[in-house]
């Protein structure tokens, strides 16, 4: 891996990652502060099953359900996925479309090295979001009065990181194979959103419930890390998907013409 390429890719993504991380922590503290005041009354509301599934169970009456619905189901994966996908698309396909890679790859840099360095930068961005989620959970849960073990909060952050790796790797793979930023962003975002919808709705229809196994989101949240801790199976699947997609990206980029 090229240290210079990794450092620059990270530097260019860092402002977005840090501001998103700070915003996420602030939201989580606010969410924690709201729980004592409104959590129990919202928890008493009847929520349709489909909506409840979309929100990770929508068990607002408990601190675990409160944070699972707000952070675990929505903000966490949204931010981790969005930053991983847009970052991966921009750093690879975006620079190719902007013709910067035509100069960079005229240097003695292997294409697989370039892909690895840029993917590593995206990994760091996702880890920053996961760390922010973890810190925000600790502070938010403390503000809310406690009730979730630190291990379960760690579990959510770890599962979230692997979800970010997988969605980022998907964007890297499409970007490497096509050199098209909009296609990489669109395809990876579509898969992430479909994953969320499938994981939420497939279990409601008996004969479609098997579809959840095709969902990246299921391997992140299906095990309910905030309630049950680390799901090794989910992490293994997301890790394997990320590794396969990264390998594919290197091969695909090695074999094609640079577009611009």
């Amino acid at each position: 891996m090229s240290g210079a390429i990794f450092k620059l890719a990270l530097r260019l993504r860092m402002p977005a990652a840090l501001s998103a991380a700070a915003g996420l922590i602030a939201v989580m503290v606010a969410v924690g502060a709201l729980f004592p005041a409104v959590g129990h009354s919202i928890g008493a509301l009847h929520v349709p099953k489909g909506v409840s599934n979309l929100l990770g169970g929508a068990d607002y009456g408990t601190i675990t359900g409160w944070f699972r619905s707000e952070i675990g189901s929505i903000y966490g994966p949204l931010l981790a996925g969005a930053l991983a996908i847009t970052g991966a698309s921009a750093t690879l396909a975006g620079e190719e479309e902007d013709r910067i890679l035509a100069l960079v790859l005229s240097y003695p840099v292997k294409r697989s090295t370039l892909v690895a360095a840029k993917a590593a930068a995206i990994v760091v961005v996702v880890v920053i979001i996961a760390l922010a989620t973890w810190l925000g959970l600790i502070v938010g849960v403390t503000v809310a009065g406690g009730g979730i073990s630190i291990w379960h909060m760690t579990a959510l952050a770890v599962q979230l990181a692997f979800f970010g790796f997988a969605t980022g790797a998907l964007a890297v793979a499409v970007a490497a194979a096509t050199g098209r930023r909009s296609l990489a962003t669109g395809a990876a975002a579509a898969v992430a959103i479909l994953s969320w919808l499938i994981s939420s709705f497939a279990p409601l229809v008996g004969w479609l419930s098997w579809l959840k196994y095709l969902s990246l989101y299921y391997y992140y949240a299906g095990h309910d890390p905030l309630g049950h801790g680390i799901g090794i199976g989910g992490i293994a699947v997301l890790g394997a998907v990320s590794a396969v997609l990264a390998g594919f990206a290197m091969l695909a980029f090695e074999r094609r013409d640079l577009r611009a």
Partner: protein
Amino acid sequence: MNKGLAIATRGLSKDYGSGRGLFDLDLEVRSGEVFGFLGPNGAGKSTTLRLLLGLIRPTAGSARVLGLDMDADSSEIRRRVGFLPGDLALYPKLTGRDMLEYLTALRGGGVNGRYRDSLVERFDADLDRPVHELSTGNRQKLGLIQAFMHQPELLILDEPISGLDPLVQQSFHALLTEVSGRGHTVFLSSHTLSEVERVTHRLAILRRGRLIVVDSVENLRRVATQRLEIEFAAPVAAESFRALPAVTGAVADGRTLTVSFEGSADAVVKAAAAHEVRAIRPREDDLEEIFLRYYREDPV
């Protein structure tokens, strides 16, 4: 491959379909020469350069660069070559200094810092402002510095003086002469002759993806159509001159007739002698016109 060749291509082709691309390019660039690679926009010049650097793959043919195989030794070739893309793009948020530091790091220790600094001074490059705030000319200076900074054995430059003011162009031409004097090779692509005329030893002209001619500027001048401007005492009919053997064109403007011909001027002079001649002035064919002719049609 002959050791005296910096670049040698054999049937090098890149077919984009619909007649676009590069076809059967057989080209030899000698070590130590400044070689001009000319052609109109879309002729296949940039495609050739991108093939040589492994940025795109050929559909047929092969090439050796500095004695190395274009495909198998691509990384080593790129280590020993300096490249300036025609449509240079840099990271807009980086300053010129950061950009050069980054590219120096990619060279992996092959850059002499003092030499790089001397290039910065020579081109008076602005290293403190972000690239997106720089003018085209100032960005081009950064492009030139990065191409030359590791003192490569071969420089591949695509439209290098684009956007440069005349003073910087002069510095650039002086630098080309210096590196050529050190025995390094320069492969210089352009769509205008004036960009390469002063500095190239030989040049090639490409049109619609095919090589039309490879020769020195002097030889191209020698084979060019010659012209005589004849001033008569009274207007004469151009048609009578057009009918002469070897005459390719005759244009009358009042009492002045301009006759283009190939080979001997004998027939033209004898025909002119039938009238009262005030003056005969030889007109050297404008070199740019020679090239435009190559661009427009297949020379016979």
